[in-house]
């Protein structure tokens, strides 16, 4: 199995479940964001997790091809940028999260995007039979 398929097999279901979770539990996830932005520790820890995942993805796959694989590259770069932002500019990250997600349509839109991207990656990653 090549790297991009393995990443799609891991990231696809995770994104799909997150997207569905956000759409089904909007109030809970709004509370989670409000709670998370108050804690510099949580912002820092999520930044470390994002940065590591993003750097790992880009090291395994980093190509701007005109097919579904470009989603893996985009997810990799978004994770790297989000990780760097949270670690280097935590107050900006907290402000942005509150502005974009709390009390706006940002959260359901993000949930829908995560669900769609996750579904595409899952289908593409798992459609090749076997391991």
């Amino acid at each position, binding site marked *: 199995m090549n790297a991009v398929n393995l990443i799609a097999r891991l990231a696809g279901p995770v994104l799909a479940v997150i997207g569905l979770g956000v759409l089904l539990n909007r109030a*809970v*996830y709004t509370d*989670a964001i409000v709670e998370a932005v108050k804690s510099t520790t949580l912002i820092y820890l999520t930044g470390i997790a994002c940065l590591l995942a993003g750097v790992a993805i880009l090291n395994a796959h980093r190509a701007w091809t005109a097919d579904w694989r470009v989603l893996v590259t985009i997810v990799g770069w978004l994770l790297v940028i989000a990780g760097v932002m949270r670690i280097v500019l935590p107050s900006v990250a907290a402000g942005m999260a509150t502005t974009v997600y709390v009390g706006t349509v940002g959260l359901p839109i993000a949930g829908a995007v995560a669900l769609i991207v996750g579904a595409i990656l899952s289908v593409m990653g798992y459609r090749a039979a076997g391991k």
Partner: protein
Amino acid sequence: MQPAVFIARLLGPVLVVIGLSILLNEQIYAAIVMEAVHSPTLIYFSGLLSLPIGIAILNLHRAWTADWRVVVTIFGWLFTIGGIVRILLPHLTAVLGETVFSSAAAMPVVGVIVLLVGGWLCFEGYRRAGGAQSAKGG
């Protein structure tokens, strides 16, 4: 090295440390559970940690064999289902966590199980001599 052996080498020691820690710090773990079930953020993050680990395990090893390797498969499914439930059904997770750990006996029982299973995985994972270079040993 077979994927199941590699996973056992990673998962085994982690479970042993967690199991020992639960038995040695029962009250702290009870406090952790109670704090976690009241925080949607912590439920979400623990789901986010659990789900990729489960999917990664199942992608590497997913076989219902009649030997120790089935433990790896079971853990893969438990992490996957645990992650999905935490992300999709955070309320249910909170209720389940509170219910299961409300009994005084629950924490030591979980600690002993985690310690025993972790010890077993360590034994099976590491009893084959050598490290990554010893492919024939697996």
